[in-house]
């Protein structure tokens, strides 16, 4: 493995000191001159006609500057298939539908004004269950599709289907078959920093919006369309992203509240801030979709997998976000985790009157892995094979092209499985703890590791600019949301240019000054941006060495003359000072330029900053600014066959848990947890572990207690008392992380994506351990003590 100076070290994050000191500026902290506060009135029904809206009392409240509804503002369509509107007219389809909004001089007045808005509704029959919604005679959520064509059912027109091989033949020929039905709940991303934005217009009617987003450039496009709808065609949006208090997928769409802030800002001519409080964050953002999965897998007598058959129903909620594309990512493990020749996968996405859903960290993969990895254990049991052996036998291997057309290059699946088995004590413990209600379980993961071409472009831009002092500014289109993007990019930039990381400043989140990037999702941030940084650094080095070819020897001579001045006994050697060196003779490392052939010469060295100053101050000067756009060598899925090499590389991993189940309370106690991830190469030891630890914690919550509960479309637990996320005492078990380095040829320095995978196999690993402990298979997440206790009572 190539020895690198900074990559792979345990480096503190550049953004950490300001965050530790409370000086980082989040949207909550940002105030603009003359700013107003916006507040949204949401629907009182899950499904109803709007008969009238009376805003006159609210308008008369002192301090109110504007009251808007769908009836006094231009129609702005939003969402993945544009079936949603910033403000609703005609009817509401979910409790979070925006029916009116207010801008006032302070948040209290805005809140008070909402109470003064009278909306008269006529309630309509509603449907909250996706299977009920598919039945004949179910209430139609949308009477027409976004193009105005009448709709006859509640199916979202985004079908997903993948077929490979001959399913029926394989089923008939399988020695063993295991079937299962698995469900997952809605999960709220629960970012500690709630969402918000500040919209404002300049006198040319260009929009400046500070907002929480993972897709600043796609958001710019969305907002420019909104400006067109508002009669401001040709005007531009500048999106600025402040420090983000987590995001986890919440920033993959533009949201109603952002458009409402824009409308209020335009109407009032003043900056308008809309900040969601915690209850609004729960009720007005899109949670991770719930799934219902029927699965069947088979294998031969020898344990080789023969087929996989999966039918899935997704509750879309009332409108369609980018979350409707999560089946494209679910399809990766479904088609390709473990080598399986015959696959059938079909998913229906269904409109209901529930809150509309989006992706959360993992983009569908946690839901797919839940069904797949639990069912692998079911199959192992039917076939009489140890679940670890079944996984190992059918593991993914390097240099393999799967049925879906995924080109697997580097692959550490085998090593990950072995590490988990070893660290967990699998051979000693599995199947031997039933008498004391202890068990071990494991699960694998397969995910995109080299971005994912969900959009037509999968590109990331980088601009590098060097100043007079050898400092490097790296402008990136990607977003730091806590994951460590800035740190990875700073290390990669320093390493590839040949400077120290303390000389690097990473600037992100401004569409006016940063280069284009499709967005920070799919664990792609570091993978794509660091690749672009390597390309931009290469260009910068060429420019630097061209400059050095002219100025290196004169600068060395000048330095030696200075030395002689200080120390007259020093003899300046004769080295042909005026000679012009060839640019290819130079090397730059740790801010110093030297000759490759004389790496250790104490004389033939010039600092980078000296050379850079020469560039600026010489006649006919120049500057070192370079750019690069990295677009990975991956493919969009074929619309008909769903085949294509979606990612430039893939990540593998395995996690294992040892648990003890309290037979009296039904509580699952985790005793030990092991995570082995094929990460390609570690960029920063500290942040990579942070990503995996954090993923596991979210996976533990998913496994054991997290659930966004609703009744007739209204969320029942919009706070952290009733919606429990993992707290510090919940993590009172050892977590052992193994980073398996497979040095991927497409990855920057060999690295693959690491953002999402941490939580993907966690829940099934725990469920499989629970089964090993007590012989009970919980199939619907979360595995609460109530469910486990009920199951224990049933078998007793």
């Amino acid at each position, binding site marked *: 493995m190539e020895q690198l100076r900074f990559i792979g070290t345990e480096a503190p994050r550049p953004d950490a000191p300001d965050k530790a000191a409370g000086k980082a500026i989040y949207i909550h902290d940002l105030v603009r001159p003359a700013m107003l506060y916006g507040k949204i009135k949401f629907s009182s029904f899950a499904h109803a006609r709007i008969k009238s809206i009376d805003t006159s009392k609210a308008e008369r409240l002192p301090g109110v500057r504007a009251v808007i509804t769908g009836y006094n503002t231009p129609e702005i369509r939003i969402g993945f298939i544009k079936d949603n509107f910033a403000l609703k007219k005609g009817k509401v389809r979910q409790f979070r539908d925006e029916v009116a909004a207010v801008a006032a001089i302070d948040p209290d007045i805005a809140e008070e004004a909402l109470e003064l808005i009278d909306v008269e509704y006529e309630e309509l029959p509603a449907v909250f269950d996706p299977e009920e919604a598919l039945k004949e005679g179910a209430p139609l959520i949308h009477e027409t599709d976004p193009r105005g064509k009448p709709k006859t059912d509640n199916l979202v027109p985004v079908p997903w289907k993948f077929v490979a091989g001959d399913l029926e033949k394989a089923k008939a020929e399988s020695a063993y078959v295991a079937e299962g039905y698995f469900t997952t709940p809605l999960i709220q991303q629960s970012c*500690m920093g709630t969402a918000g934005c500040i919209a404002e217009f300049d006198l040319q009617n260009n929009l400046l919006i500070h907002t929480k987003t993972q897709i600043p450039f796609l958001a710019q496009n969305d907002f420019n369309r909104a400006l067109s709808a508002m009669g401001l065609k040709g005007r531009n949006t500048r999106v600025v992203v402040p420090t983000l208090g987590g995001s986890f997928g919440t920033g993959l769409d533009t949201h109603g509240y952002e458009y409402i802030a824009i409308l209020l800002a335009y109407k009032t001519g003043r900056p308008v801030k809309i900040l969601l409080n915690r209850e609004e964050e729960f009720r007005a953002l899109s949670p991770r979709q719930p799934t219902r999965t029927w699965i069947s897998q088979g294998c031969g007598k020898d344990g080789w997998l023969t087929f996989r058959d999966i039918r899935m129903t997704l509750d879309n909620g009332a409108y369609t976000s980018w979350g409707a594309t999560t089946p494209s990512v679910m399809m990766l493990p479904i088609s390709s985790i473990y080598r399986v020749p015959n696959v059938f996968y079909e998913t229906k996405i269904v409109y209901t009157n529930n809150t509309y859903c989006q992706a959360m960290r993992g983009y569908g993969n946690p839901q797919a892995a839940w069904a797949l990895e639990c069912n692998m254990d079911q199959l192992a049991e039917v076939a009489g094979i140890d679940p670890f052996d079944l996984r190992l036998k059918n593991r993914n291997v390097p240099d393999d092209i799967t049925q879906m057309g995924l080109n697997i290059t580097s692959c550490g699946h085998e090593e990950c499985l072995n590490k988990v088995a070893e660290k967990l004590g699998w051979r000693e413990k599995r199947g031997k703890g039933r008498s004391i209600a202890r068990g071990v379980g494991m699960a694998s993961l397969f995910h995109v590791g080299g971005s994912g071409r969900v959009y037509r472009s999968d590109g990331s831009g980088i601009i590098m600019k060097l100043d007079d002092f050898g400092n490097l500014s790296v402008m990136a289109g990607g977003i730091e949301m806590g994951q460590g993007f800035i740190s990875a990019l700073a290390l990669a930039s320093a390493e590839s240019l040949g400077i120290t990381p303390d000389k690097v400043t990473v600037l992100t989140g401004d569409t006016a000054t940063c280069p284009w990037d499709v967005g920070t999702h799919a664990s792609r941030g570091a993978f794509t941006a660091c690749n672009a940084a390597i390309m931009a650094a290469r260009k910068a080095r060429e420019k630097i060495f061209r400059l050095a070819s002219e100025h290196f020897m004169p600068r060395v001579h000048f330095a030696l003359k200075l030395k002689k001045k200080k120390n007259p006994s020093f003899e300046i050697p004769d080295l042909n000072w005026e000679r012009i060196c060839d640019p290819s003779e130079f090397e730059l490392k740790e801010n110093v330029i030297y000759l490759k052939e004389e790496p250790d010469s104490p004389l033939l060295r010039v600092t980078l900053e000296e050379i850079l100053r020469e560039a600026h101050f010489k006649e006919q000067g120049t500057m070192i600014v370079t750019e690069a756009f990295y677009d990975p060598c991956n493919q969009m899925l074929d619309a008909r066959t769903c085949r294509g090499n979606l990612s430039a590389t893939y990540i593998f991993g395995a996690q294992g848990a040892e648990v003890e189940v309290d037979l009296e309370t039904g509580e699952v106690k985790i005793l030990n947890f092991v995570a082995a991830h094929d990460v390609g190469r570690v960029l920063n030891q500290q942040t990579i572990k942070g990503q995996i630890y954090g993923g596991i914690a979210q996976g533990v919550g998913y496994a054991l207690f997290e659930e966004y509960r609703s009744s007739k479309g209204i969320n029942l637990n919009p706070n952290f008392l009733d919606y429990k996320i993992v707290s510090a005492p919940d993590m009172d078990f050892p977590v052992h992380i193994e980073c398996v380095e497979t040095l991927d040829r497409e990855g920057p320095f060999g690295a693959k994506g690491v953002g999402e995978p941490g939580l993907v196999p966690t829940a099934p690993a725990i469920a499989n351990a629970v089964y090993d402990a007590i012989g009970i298979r919980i199939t619907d997440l979360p595995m609460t003590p109530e469910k486990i206790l009920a199951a224990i009572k049933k078998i007793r």
Partner: protein
Amino acid sequence: MKKMLNFVLNGSEVSAEVESHRMLLQVLREQFQLTGTKEGCGQGECGACTVLVEGIPVDSCIYPAFEVTGKSVVTVEGLLGDGNRLHPIQEAFVANGGIQCGFCTPGMIMSSKALLDGVPVPTAAEVRRALSGNLCRCTGYVQIVDSVLKTHGVTKAEPV
């Protein structure tokens, strides 16, 4: 109705005209521009707003402002030394990966300070208990607990 509130904020005597129903968090953020203290839930459930009142960690979002009359309040800004020098706890969070998105960090650090002021060498279990009211969605707490344990150069009490 506004009344005069007098208290000691990060070591200095201060006073402000405050509406009687305001919570301490609003006064700190809006009247003293100390935005290091965060509002994560506004309901005393997440701990992002933790400050020390007479050395005791409280959720400032549900702590009536007038309850601090005459008392000492320390916020995350109050931990910084001259020239923006980080406090050892802050340094430990930076050095050990205890910070990701950073939104929970000020509250985490204040709860950690309250613990370490009383128990300079805590066990991992004591740290987890002391931080049980501070939620974090990013880190899984492992490196946060590690940061607190390493503040005074003490190695981990449990294998991680």
